[in-house]
């Protein structure tokens, strides 16, 4: 009996010791974690203390082609922080540029593992970021820190940063309105005998392209534009025919082929519409007449390269810039506008990561990206002297250039190619070879006069039907390139495409999208 008691006690004791061990290990891990976070915060605090200020705002932004090194970023960060101090801000900023290709993965991962990301752009989609709790609601700051942004962009524009009526992000403010231009070789166009005002829309190009083909049988009359994310090459028929003066189509995004047409808010399967049919028939007609390059649906050369190499006489391309500027981009070309887009959707929005420890200061800095010329230009172009030199002023916009003998690749810091991704483009300097001051004014004017889609601000959330959604884009991708480049006969292949997307679950996705859209409409 005694033995039994003793052994039970011993067993209990050992269990307790084990638990003790366990908890002490946990405690230790916690300690290490705490220690580590202390290390991080002390680092940050030390940094802050050295500049005699309070908290540190982290700003993570994507860069393209050239990503500045830490050595390149440091002086810019110092200059920016000195400036923030001079305008009475009680925080400093930690700049965190990330290569655009790695950006969505790295920011998502970092937030999931509770790293400090601060202000960031949910490139993988706003609704997705909200449903996985990666973003902080900003409603508390709209009346104060973010008030200047609200005033600048206006309620309509801010819709694209809302989910379920709550504001999570501020849209990037830039020239979203695109003109689609038909860019054609000057000599070739002049020889056709057509005039600029013969060109009204994409359909009006057919007779001109035929004439070009007749006069220049050796080269293609038109080169295709490259499709994004496997959507297939095309001749920009969908955006040009979808403009407000034409079919007025809003693509609901995520490459699903869901659209609304005109002022209706009824979700439609694009592949079943007259709009898509006409887009394919136009391309098929061009292909049958031999107006285009042979490998149109599979080429990976940009239309501009194809044209410049003398393989094609023209191409269609969308730009925010004016016709004169677009014509000047490539040697010896005319640029004729064939359509102008509306504000249909916008996925470029900036929010604050949900684990951010100083949201108020972050919101304040986020606001400066839209309103403070100094701040945004530090971030895009770096510091004057080292990274760029001022060459003059035009239309009230400073013009700048890279220092003598330097370029984008060699200056210590530049985020020039991020100019269309963050902040307010209309207060950025104009760099030589980039968007001209005249174009910046032109884009601003277009934004002020923009036509908005009836569903602007609605973003589809495919999470409930993600399996069907990926099956649909896979099924559609097999056909779209061939159809939009005119290599497949629309009579045979559009019905096949419709069958394929229906088999992949198109009806489910339409039902979900319609429910979401109706709910969104009620909220407005």
């Amino acid at each position, binding site marked *: 009996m005694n033995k039994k008691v003793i052994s039970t006690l011993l067993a209990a004791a050992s269990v307790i010791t084990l638990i003790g061990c366990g908890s002490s290990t946990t405690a230790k891990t916690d300690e290490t974690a705490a220690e580590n976070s202390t290390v991080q915060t002390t680092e940050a605090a030390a940094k802050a203390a050295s500049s005699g200020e309070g908290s540190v705002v982290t700003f993570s932004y994507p860069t393209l082609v050239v990503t500045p090194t830490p050595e390149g970023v440091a002086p810019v960060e110092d200059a920016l922080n000195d400036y923030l101090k001079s305008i009475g801000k009680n925080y400093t900023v930690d700049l965190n540029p990330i290569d655009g290709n790695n950006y969505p*993965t790295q920011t998502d991962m970092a937030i999931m593992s509770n790293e400090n990301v601060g202000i960031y752009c949910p490139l993988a989609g706003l609704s997705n970021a909200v449903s996985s709790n990666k973003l902080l609601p900003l409603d508390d700051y709209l009346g104060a820190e973010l008030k200047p942004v609200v005033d600048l962009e206006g309620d309509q524009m801010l819709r694209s940063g809302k989910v379920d009526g709550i504001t999570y992000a501020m849209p990037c403010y830039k020239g979203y309105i695109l003109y689609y231009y038909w860019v054609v070789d000057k000599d070739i166009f002049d020889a056709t005998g057509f005039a600029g005002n013969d060109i009204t829309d994409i359909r009006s190009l057919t007779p001109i392209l035929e004439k070009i083909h007749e006069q220049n049988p050796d080269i293609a009359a038109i080169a295709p534009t490259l499709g994004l994310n496997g959507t297939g090459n095309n001749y920009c028929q969908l955006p040009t025919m979808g403009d407000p003066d034409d079919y007025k189509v809003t693509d609901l995004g995520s490459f699903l082929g869901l659209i609304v047409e005109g002022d209706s808010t009824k979700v439609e399967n694009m592949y079943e519409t007259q709009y898509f049919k006409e887009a394919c028939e136009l391309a098929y007609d061009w292909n049958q007449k031999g107006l285009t390059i042979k490998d149109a649906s599979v080429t990976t050369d940009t239309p501009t390269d194809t044209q410049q190499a003398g393989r094609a006489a023209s191409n269609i391309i969308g730009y925010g810039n004016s016709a004169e500027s677009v014509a000047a981009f490539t040697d010896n070309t005319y640029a004729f506008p064939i359509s102008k887009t509306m504000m249909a959707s916008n996925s470029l929005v900036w929010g604050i990561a949900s684990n951010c420890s100083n949201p108020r200061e972050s919101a304040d800095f986020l606001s400066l990206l839209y309103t403070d010329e100094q701040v945004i230009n530090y971030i895009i172009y770096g510091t004057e002297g080292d990274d760029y030199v001022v060459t003059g002023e035009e239309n009230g916009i400073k013009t700048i250039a890279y220092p003598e003998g330097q370029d984008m690749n060699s200056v210590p810091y530049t985020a020039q190619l991020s100019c269309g991704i963050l902040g307010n483009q209309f207060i950025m300097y104009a760099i030589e070879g980039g968007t001209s001051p005249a174009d910046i004014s032109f884009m601003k004017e277009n934004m002020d006069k923009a036509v908005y889609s009836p569903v602007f601000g609605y973003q589809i959330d495919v999470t409930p039907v993600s399996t069907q959604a990926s099956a649909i884009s896979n099924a559609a991708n097999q056909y779209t390139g061939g159809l939009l480049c005119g290599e497949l006969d629309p009579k045979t292949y559009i019905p096949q495409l419709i069958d394929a997307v229906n088999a992949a679950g198109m009806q489910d996705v339409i039902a979900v999208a319609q429910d979401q859209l109706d709910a969104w409409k009620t909220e407005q």
Partner: protein
Amino acid sequence: MKHNHNSETRFRTVCLIILLIFTVLCLAPFVLMFSASITEEDALIKDGYRFFPSQISFATYAFLWAKRETIGRSYLMSIIVTGLGTLTSVIITSMLAYPLARRDFKWRNAFAFIIFFTMMFNGGMTASYIIWTRYFHIKDTFWALLIPNLLMNGMNVLMVRNYYQSSIPDSILEAARVDGASEMMIYRRIILPLSTPVLITISLFTGMAYWNDWTNGLYYITNQKLFTINVYLNNLMKNIQLLASQSSLTEGANLAGLDLPAVGARMAIAMIAVLPVMLIFPFIQGQLIKGVVIGGVKG
């Protein structure tokens, strides 16, 4: 006899023709890539890829030379990561495989199972990421390129173990023990020299994996100075693709004035990225075959 000789010749001829076809199939893409890298840019777009360039130009290599600071650094980073990674990996793999091959090691099956388990299941990306960044703090350090996913591979461990079991007779080890050799000495003086073929084989596998890897760069590296050549190349191509297509990211930005590396330059980068592999392979080919055959098939 004569009949036999004839059929032998016929067999060899058939083999030779089949192998020749395969050789051409393997070589053709390389030749095409090289030819594209030395073709004049406009000619490349106009005439397409050709085995013999229509207009030769070394402009793409001049472009790479102009970017030698970034490209050179990534290249050097790749060499260091691959060299150090392969060496470490081979040493620890063989050191783990050796006890597993010893019949007198009681727990060898349990350990083998644990290793085998890692080949079937893993913690998934997010969990691994959290472990590596929050507990080991390897984010944005050299270690991030070296350790995750690549340092140890269950497949290689089992292959080396099989090789030890099937090609090194126990009697040699016993003889060594009788002569008074310590365990460490047996491993160093007998096991390692006798297992050159399999070690070379796994060196090649590991080396290739290190050299071609860009996923660790994608997840863990933000500092461009730590990019390996394949991370750099992958990012550059993806960025250019994004800029070339009509993407909302670049609306409003004027890209026409940019001097971005075009197709030819990308081919040239790909060319220099495969160069070291092509240079090393012929020297280890013989050992490689032996290692794969003995380590893989038996046991």
